[in-house]
């Protein structure tokens, strides 16, 4: 199965600043996704990262706040712009290899604290 490497593992940032989270797959994957998880809550799908084009965002998430890039089939970044304390949560990248493999795998998560 695919391995996803996510960094940083955790970060603390000041309100109003931006943070970039990277996700690297050890092999090419058809689909990559980003999720947000608040404490004691479940994971919420933020967006689908599309190779070479704009991400597809779910309701409640925008490209201005959470720009996502996916320049190739193994790499994606999520940026948190103008971070606020309410953005403090864990962010996960996920992939679906496709082509007969329908399982989803997840990165180790980035725990963000905005102060």
């Amino acid at each position, binding site marked *: *199965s695919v391995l996803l490497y996510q960094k940083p593992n955790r970060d603390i940032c000041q309100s109003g600043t931006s943070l970039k989270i990277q996700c690297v797959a050890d092999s090419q994957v058809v*689909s990559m*996704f980003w999720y947000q*998880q608040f404490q004691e*809550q*479940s*994971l*919420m*799908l933020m967006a*689908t990262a599309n190779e070479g084009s704009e991400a597809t965002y*779910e309701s409640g998430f925008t490209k201005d706040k959470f720009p996502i890039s996916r320049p190739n089939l193994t790499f994606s970044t999520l940026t948190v712009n103008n971070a606020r304390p309410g953005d403090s949560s*864990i962010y*996960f990248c*996920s992939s*679906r290899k*496709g082509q007969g493999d*329908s*399982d*989803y*795998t*997840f990165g*180790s*998560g980035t*725990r963000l604290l905005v102060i």
Partner: protein
Amino acid sequence: GQQVQQSPASLVLQEGENAELQCNFSSTATQLQWFYQSPGGSLVSLLSNPSGTKHTGRLTSTTVTKERRSSLHISSSQTTDSGTYLCAIENYAQGLTFGLGTRVSVFP
């Protein structure tokens, strides 16, 4: 939108006991996966089971697609099984919708 409901919300077990976790979902699922989330937050895929019965180690999942429900059976629980078990469904490769999970605590 899709909804995934898990029960019970929490479960306390004595080591060696068995447990059954339930997952009900509101719409067609092309994929269903059970995940384990450790107290530290990392997520591990346990079983992918969109229909039928699958086993891995001490875990057995049974999904009845037409009734939109799945169960995860843990046999002979161990203290290392403590954590949160998440059920997630996919609708036509559009990412996963997660339930709130069942928090399992296993004591010696």
